[in-house]
C-alpha cells in the first residue's frame, strides 16, 4: 500500500454536507473489474454536463462551469476540503480509488461516514478530521487566496496554514502506523495465523453449525 507521511499541496473545495459515494463515483463506473482509472469520473454528475459512460474518453466532455473543482484556480488540487459526513452511503471502495486517481492525497472534513473513512486508509488517502470551526477557517482562507496550499504532517498529526494556524487532528494508532509505513495489512494479519487457527478450532468445537454447511 502507498505510504503517507507529509504532504503540501493545493486545496480544492467540496462545499456541501453529506456528500455521498454515489456523488463521488456514480454507479455505472462500478462495472469495472480494475482498481484504477476512476479519476476522470470523480464527481461525474456534478462535474460534466452530459452523462458519463464507463470507458468513454472524458477529455472532450462539456464541463459544468459552476462546479468549483472545474475552476482553473483549483486545477491540480491534491487536498480536498469538505463538509461533515463526507462519503456517506455505499461501501464502494471505488470512492477513495476515484479521489486518489484524480490526484487527491488527503481529504479534510469535520466528519466522515464510517465505511468510507475506513476505506481511505487502505489506499494511502488520509482523511483528516478537524472541527467545523477549523474547517470554516480553511474555507475562508482558501476562498480569499488563489493558489492556497496546506501542509499536512502525519507523524505530528497537524495541518498547518501559511497564515500560521496549526490544527491538530486525531486518528487511531494502528491506522497511523499502517499509513506511515505503507504496510500490507493482510500480511500483518497473517502473522497471527496461529491465533486464528486456535480460535477457529475452539469455535468449531463450541458452534459446529458455523462450519461445513456450505459446500
Amino acid at each position, binding site marked *: 500500500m502507498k505510504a503517507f507521511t507529509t504532504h503540501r499541496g493545493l486545496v480544492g473545495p467540496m462545499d456541501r454536507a453529506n456528500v455521498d459515494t454515489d456523488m463521488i463515483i456514480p454507479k455505472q463506473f*462500478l462495472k469495472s*473489474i480494475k*482498481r484504477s482509472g476512476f479519476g476522470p469520473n470523480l464527481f461525474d454528475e456534478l462535474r460534466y454536463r452530459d452523462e458519463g459512460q464507463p470507458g468513454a474518453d472524458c477529455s472532450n466532455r462539456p464541463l459544468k462551469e459552476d462546479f468549483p473543482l472545474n475552476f482553473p484556480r483549483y486545477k491540480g488540487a491534491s487536498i480536498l476540503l469538505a463538509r461533515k459526513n463526507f462519503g456517506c452511503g455505499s461501501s464502494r471502495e471505488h470512492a477513495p480509488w476515484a479521489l486518489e486517481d484524480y490526484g487527491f492525497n488527503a481529504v479534510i472534513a469535520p*466528519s466522515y461516514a464510517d465505511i468510507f473513512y475506513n*476505506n481511505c486508509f487502505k489506499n494511502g488517502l488520509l482523511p483528516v478530521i478537524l472541527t467545523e470551526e477549523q474547517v470554516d477557517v480553511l474555507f475562508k482562507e482558501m476562498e480569499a487566496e488563489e493558489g492556497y496550499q496546506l501542509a499536512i504532517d502525519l507523524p505530528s498529526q497537524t495541518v498547518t496554514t501559511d497564515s500560521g494556524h496549526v490544527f491538530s487532528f486525531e486518528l487511531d494508532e494502528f491506522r497511523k502506523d499502517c499509513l506511515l509505513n505503507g504496510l500490507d495489512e493482510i500480511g500483518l494479519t497473517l502473522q497471527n495465523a496461529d491465533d*486464528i487457527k486456535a480460535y477457529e478450532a475452539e469455535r468449531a468445537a463450541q458452534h459446529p*453449525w458455523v462450519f461445513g454447511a456450505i459446500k
Partner: protein
Amino acid sequence: MAGRTLYDKLWDSHLVKQNSDGSSLIYIDRHVIHEVTSPQAFEGLRLANRKPWRLDTNIATPDHNISTDKSERDAGVAGMTDEVSRIQVQTLDDNCDLYGIKEFKINEMGQGIVHVMGPELGATMPGMTVVCGDSHTATHGALACLAHGIGTSEVEHVLATQCLVAKKMKNMRVTVNGTVGAGVTPKDVVLAIIGKIGTAGGNEHAIEFAGSVFRDMSIEGRMTVCNMAIEAGARVGMVAVDQKTIDYCEGRQFVPKGEMFEQAVVYWNTLTSDADAVFDTEVVLHADDIAPQVTWGTSPEMVSAVTASVPTLDEQPTEEKRKGLERALEYMGLEGGQAIESIKVDRVFIGSCTNSRIEDMRAAAAVAKGRQVASSVKQVLIVPGSQMVKAQAEAEGLDKIFIDAGMDWREPGCSMCLAMNADKLGAGEHCASTSNRNFEGRQGNGGRTHLMSPAMAAAAAVAGHIVDVREFAGGDQ
C-alpha cells in the same frame, strides 16, 4: 460488572486477538460475495500469491448489475447485452469456480439479492459475524448477527485471513414502544428513525432496535429496519433473538437439523442484551407518532409523514440547513410548502434488499389487486428479491395480480435501486421507490426518488401521485 449488550456479546465471542495499539482482530463466520465489489479482491489475492483461508464460509451470487428482463435473463451470462457488466458477472463465476466457492449462478434457484439470499437459505444464522462488500449487510442483523458492509480491500482481507482488523463501535439503542397503526410498516418505522436522528446520527455506533414495535414485527420486517441502519450512519443494526428468530431459521437449507439445531438454539437464546446493559446512546420514539413516511429530498433524512408538506426555506434553523434544502428542492423540482400528496410519479419501483421479500410482494399485491396503474405512470417495476421469492409469489398468484394491474413482473436482482442495469429513471422523472437511497442520480442521472413502503408505492402507482395508503385502502376497487 454491568451487563453486556447484544453487540458486546457478539464482539466478545469473535475476538481473536486484542492488539496493544487499540485495534482488534475479529473472526468472520460468513462472507457474502457479489460481482461488483469482489473482482479486485480476487485479483489482489492472486497478485500476492494467496488463497482463500476457508471455503465453507463464503457464499456468492450475482445481483447488482444483472438484467431483470426475462428474455435477456433466459440467455444467461453469455446473453448479457451490456458487455462491461457481462465481464464482471463472468469474472465472479470464474473466481468462484477457480477457488471452489459456493455460488448461486445467475438463473439458479437460490440466486437473489445478497441480503435476501443469505437469510432465506439459512446461510446467515444468529450469533454469526457476517460481512459483504455492500453497505446494506446490516440487514442480516435482524437475525441477531453482527453484520456490516466492507470495502473491497477488506473483502480481500477476509478471503485471505478470515478476519478483519477492527475497532469496537459504541452501543446505541433505538427503542420504539407501542403498536403501529394500520398502514404503518417497518419501512415507515425506520424512515421515521432516520428522520429523527439524521443520516449521521448513528456514525461510529452499532444500533440495536428494541421495544414492542420490533418484537411485534416479523423477521422480514426486522430485515427492512436493519437494512437501513446505514442510512442512519450506523454500519450495524441488530434485533435480539426471540422465538420468531428461531422459527424463521428452522428448516432452512444451511441451518443444522436435529440435535445440532437444538444445541444452536440454546446458544441463540443467549443473544439478547442483558437487562442492566448500558448503552452509550439511547434514542426513543413512540409508535403513535409514526405515520406512513415519504422522502421528498435527496437524503433519507429528508423525510416526512405522507400527510405533511415539503418544508419551507424560512423554517430552517441554520444557514447550512437552508442551503441544503434549497439545493434538494431544486434537484427534486419541488416547492417548499407543497403537499407531499401532490407529487406526481412517473415510475414506480418495488424491490431492493430493503423491500423485495415475500411479505413486501404480498403488501404491494394487496393494494394492486383489482386496480389499474394510472395512465400517467410510465412503468411499474416489481422485482422480487430472489428466485425463491419469485417462485413463492408465483405460487400465490401475486404475479398475475401485478400483471393484471399493468405492472411489470421481473427477474430477481438489485435493479432500479442503484440502476446499474437497464432499469433506470430518466432525468427529471419522479419515482415512488421501496429502495433505500434517494441520493442525486442514484436511480438514474437526474432521477428523483421518493422512498416509501411497498404498499405506499403500489398505491402511488394506481393514483399516479403520492397518496396516503390508509385512505386509499378503503377506496373503490
